[in-house]
């Protein structure tokens, strides 16, 4: 388990860094868009669709890492009233449905990518399948991190709770 946790920790770190780089790239793209249009009077046409795709990556990878680090919004009022054993079962139910949803992102994201693969995106000239890559990769990471949570709990290790201030 320790080794698995070290591995997923590295994956999460990489995911978070890609997201961070995505945010910086987005900033550069939109700043360039304003600069070219206003200063050079020569509007860039690829920055808008391009930055939207970058945003998709940064949201879905960042959100997947949030599963591991526990920084999602949640609502845990009822849980305070329940005994610890019941709580652990409910946490596992929750992690299971999140796993299922992550799997759905991979499977159905793939279907969407396959359907749009032959479409060429306007202004970018790349395949429409690129639109759905963040869903597929984000989904895969959500499955990985949710399974890790289940495994950790089964092994009696703590998992970060949503709504807590996450420890980074």
């Amino acid at each position: 388990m320790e080794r698995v946790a070290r591995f997923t920790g590295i994956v999460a770190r990489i995911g978070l860094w890609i997201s961070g780089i995505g945010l910086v790239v987005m900033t550069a793209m939109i700043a360039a868009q304003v600069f070219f249009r206003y200063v050079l009077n020569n509007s860039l046409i690829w920055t808008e669709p391009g930055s939207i795709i970058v945003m998709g990556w940064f949201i879905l990878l960042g959100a997947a890492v949030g599963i591991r680090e526990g920084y999602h919004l949640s609502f845990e009022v009822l849980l305070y009233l329940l005994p610890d054993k019941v709580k652990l079962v409910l946490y596992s139910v929750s992690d299971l449905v999140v796993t299922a949803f992550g799997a759905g992102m991979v499977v159905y994201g793939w279907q969407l990518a396959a359907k749009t693969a032959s479409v060429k995106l306007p202004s970018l000239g790349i395949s429409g399948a690129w639109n759905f890559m963040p869903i597929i990769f984000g989904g895969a990471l959500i499955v990985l991190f949710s399974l890790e949570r289940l495994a950790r709990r089964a092994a009696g290790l703590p998992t970060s709770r949503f709504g807590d201030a996450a420890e980074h």
Partner: protein
Amino acid sequence: ATACETTLRSSDTHPDGYPTVIAVQEMGKLLEERTDGRLCIEVFPSAQLGEEKDTIEQTQFGVIDMLRVSMGPFNNIIEETQVVSLPYIFRSVDHMHKVMDGPIGDEILEAFSDHDLVGLAFYDGGSRSFYNSEKPITSMEDLAGMKFRVMQSDIFVDMVSALGANATPLPYGEVYSSIQTGVIDGAENNWPSYESSGHFEVAKYYTLDEHLIVPEVLVMSKSTWDGLSAEDQEIVRQAAKDSVPMMRELWAEREKESEAKVIEAGAEVVTDIDKTPFIEAMKPVYEKHVTSDTLKDLVERIQATE
């Protein structure tokens, strides 16, 4: 509509009461009569179920049954649809009607079937012209260096560049304030959109160059279509065709209303322009986009249609 056996869900980005929405609702009434209540249509207006690109995918996957949509978003999916998005391809609305009502239109409708869709009918989308906040545009020289918002489409971007202006893609919702503050000088659209978006309040010079006369299309999901009996398929196709004349009437009325309203509000319409240099400037756009034999053939036949 609750008494229906099967209710077909149809999406539209326009609001309730728009000619396209009414036309599909009317088609639904025809269907209900002709199938003794086996089939009817419920229209979801105002992009409730998603924007055009999204609802195209939903129709392909059979999530929704029908869709009224413009041809632009199909340009990168179905090659044949590109031909109607070529600037100045149609000389007039009448010319467009003749082409789309004839064998060429049928051919384009047929092309949808390779993409899990069934093309049912073409509706009117009016003709699009340039409007701006700066000056009345009467020649190509006037356009030079001006920034115009266009939809994200390679053909439209190339068209604006070929006219010597600056194509600036922007989200539709930001166009009004962007013209107002001067981020862009103008945009291009048909009379009803020019009016309903309020753009005439901030861009009062409308130059009737009619660079695009793009029909819209009514499609059905292939999986819904395959679930219908051959008899019902025929009824659906006929009802769609029968909704077209009424749609065109509603559209013409709506155009007139919008035109009157914006002129009343002080819009200045430039009608006496010589379009010849505009059309000539489109040569490189055609050279770049009309490359396949299919498209070349379609362009030739459309230009030959009287």
